[in-house]
């Protein structure tokens, strides 16, 4: 095995699995699940093997389109430290989620379709990770969109699921449009779309700095769509309509991570355009705070986690905006992938125990019924809320430190969001696992099979410990801001935030029968969804009505109906000549010939 071949095997084994599952999977459920898990496990094994290789041979690239010296597009592999770490995250998380899915989906319809979708999804994500140029990345970027559409709309007979899939696809399209424009601008600035070429060409770019800023912000729009940053975050909570393993995969290792990974990939370009990074930092900071606010008032067990994901992605984007390297954001992506995946799997386990009830006010008292799930949930919760010495504590605090140093306002905003994070996740925890059972299902809940518990227990380990310095330095080279530059208040403030948020949630929600707090602004998601609804309904709907009027009265009537009726009228008039007498026809014919001759000869 060489380091040239291994990435291709990692990339294509899920695709092969997806095709095989489509072809032969319907004969056996075990076979389709087995194929998917085998392909993911192969990728996982090879990724770890590749990660251990210090020497990497130059990668092969296939010339795909050649438009002359101006533009050559290759299908090739980038294998550097960044993509190796990302490969580890993606393949490892996917393998665990695939195994979990065999348990979660055991009684569901479309079992084989689901595993084929998962494999296709993994293939698309690996394509983004391994792409060596923007065009190839864009292709896989869109493939991720398509496969997420398939998976979110898995229960396609349910209207809400079909709509959610459509929404995810359409909202992503808006971001992708900007992404594509950004790619084209960067290409016209440098004449290349390959990352290696771009990275060497951009620092020497001679044109106006605002050109690069615009290009980078447009590329960042791709991230805004895919990584669900404000204001394009609305699709992500709705994507909860998909089966929980999909949410878990979508929100941890794939799809939403793609946006951050892409920013990390082009980080050397962003370094020379400080204005673009400023914008990125602000979007990230506002998202991480705004989404945390919305999460505090949700009642759906998965939606809280969805807003939490948006908020955590905000931290990563903020990290890209303020930190001196991309490692800090990638570090948070890495730890977040572990604990958020864990939280989703735990939530899925609760949902199965509750017969697909997702309103957490119908749960309660599950700590005795599902103890293993609760332990896993606690591990994920502590990491997410930044409990000292868990993985989230290290990665989140590092980003906040840099933010405080670079842009104090955003830094303190992110620190406050950390308090909200602790509050909303402890709220969810207490409402789900403590208090009395508030419904029939909650009283008869039971623990889940081993295939679901084992992946959760495995994930609990990195969720708690992946941030420890001796582990993190295996994967990342992190830089910390100068200790004197960081305000001395910051760390006490962060501890206060964690304990304050967790304590307040304990106070309010321990044994709460119904929500003692009601803030409509947050419960209604800052009314952003309503603004979109109003816009689509009124503005776009009004435009559609005008266009429909034009279509009906201009196109249909003037352009189509008038000539059609005119032709019909002529035909109707001429019909009376059809009198059924052959000799009359001969006579008309003769008169016609004579008339024609007269016209021709009289000149």
């Amino acid at each position, binding site marked *: 095995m060489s380091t040239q071949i291994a990435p291709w095997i990692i990339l294509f084994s899920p695709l092969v699995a997806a095709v095989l599952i489509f072809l032969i999977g319907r004969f056996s459920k075990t076979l389709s699940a087995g194929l998917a898990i085998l392909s993911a496990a192969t990728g996982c094994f090879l990724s770890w093997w590749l990660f251990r290789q210090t020497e990497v041979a130059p990668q092969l690239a296939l010339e795909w389109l050649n438009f002359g010296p101006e533009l050559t597009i290759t299908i090739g592999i980038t294998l550097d430290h960044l993509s190796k770490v990302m490969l580890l995250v993606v393949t490892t998380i996917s393998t665990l989620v695939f195994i979990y899915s065999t348990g979660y989906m055991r009684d569901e319809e479309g079992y084989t379709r689901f595993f084929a979708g998962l494999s296709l999804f993994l293939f698309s994500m690996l394509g983004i990770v391994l792409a060596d140029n923007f065009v190839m990345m864009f292709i896989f970027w869109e493939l991720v969109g398509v496969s997420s559409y398939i998976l979110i709309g898995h229960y396609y007979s349910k209207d809400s699921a079909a709509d959610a899939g459509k929404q995810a696809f359409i909202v992503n399209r808006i971001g992708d449009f900007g992404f594509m424009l950004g790619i084209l601008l960067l290409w016209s600035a440098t004449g290349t779309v390959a990352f290696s070429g771009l990275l060497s060409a951009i620092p020497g770019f001679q044109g106006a700095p605002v050109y690069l800023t615009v290009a980078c912000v447009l590329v960042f729009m791709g991230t805004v769509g895919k990584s669900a940053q404000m204001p394009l975050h609305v699709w992500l909570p709705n994507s909860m309509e998909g089966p929980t393993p999909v949410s878990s995969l979508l929100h941890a290792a794939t799809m939403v991570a793609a946006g951050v990974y892409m920013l990390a990939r082009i980080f050397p370009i962003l370094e020379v355009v400080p204005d673009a990074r400023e914008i990125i930092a602000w979007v990230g900071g506002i998202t991480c705070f705004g989404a945390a606010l919305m999460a505090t008032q949700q009642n759906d067990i998965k939606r809280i986690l969805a807003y939490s994901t948006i908020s955590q992605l905000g931290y990563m984007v903020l990290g890209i905006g303020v930190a001196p390297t991309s490692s800090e954001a990638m570090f948070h992506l890495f730890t977040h992938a572990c604990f958020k995946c864990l939280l989703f799997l735990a939530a899925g386990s609760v949902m199965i125990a509750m017969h697909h009830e997702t309103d957490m006010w119908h749960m309660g008292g599950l700590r005795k019924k599902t103890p293993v799930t609760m332990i896993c949930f606690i591990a994920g919760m502590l990491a997410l809320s930044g409990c000292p010495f868990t993985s989230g504590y290290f990665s989140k605090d590092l980003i906040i430190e840099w933010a405080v140093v670079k842009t104090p306002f955003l830094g303190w905003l992110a620190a406050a969001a950390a308090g909200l994070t602790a509050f909303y996740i402890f709220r969810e925890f207490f409402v789900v696992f403590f208090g009395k059972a508030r419904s029939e299902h909650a009283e008869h809940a039971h623990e889940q099979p081993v295939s679901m518990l084992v992946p959760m227990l495995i994930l609990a380990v990195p969720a708690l410990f992946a941030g420890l310095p001796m582990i993190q330095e295996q994967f990342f080279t992190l830089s910390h801001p100068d200790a004197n530059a960081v305000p001395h208040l910051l760390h006490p403030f962060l501890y206060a935030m964690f304990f304050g948020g967790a304590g307040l949630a304990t106070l309010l929600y321990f044994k709460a029968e119904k929500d003692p707090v009601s803030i409509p602004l947050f419960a209604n998601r800052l009314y952003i969804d309503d603004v979109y609804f109003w816009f689509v309904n009124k503005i776009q709907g009004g435009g559609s009505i005008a266009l429909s009027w034009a279509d009906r009265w201009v196109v249909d009537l003037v352009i189509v109906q008038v000539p059609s009726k005119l032709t019909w009228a002529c035909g109707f008039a001429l*019909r*009376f000549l*059809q009198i*059924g*007498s*052959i*000799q009359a026809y*001969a006579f008309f014919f003769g008169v016609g010939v004579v008339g024609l001759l007269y016209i021709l000869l009289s000149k």
Partner: protein
Amino acid sequence: MPTLAHYLLVSGLLFSLGLAGVLLRRNILIIFMGLELMLNAANLSLVAFSRFNLLPNGLPNYNAQVLVFFIITVAAAEVAVGLAIIVALFRAKQTTHVEDLNTLKF
């Protein structure tokens, strides 16, 4: 000695007879014969033109006569097809009168 005008006169008469037959007779076979008569009127005038428009070397212009042979050949083929259609029509309708063949109308 008959001149070109005589031939054209005869040809015109034949054509008119044919046309009158087509327009006025009711039996489809007679109409068909009228058609053939019109074709032969055209043939006659072509041959007459050929005979009376001598080329500078004193020979008639044979192009017209070749065209006549074409017309005869095509007419023979047309008669074969036409009669076949009439036979088929008779079998279907038990009539050869055009007044009875008037279903194709508005």
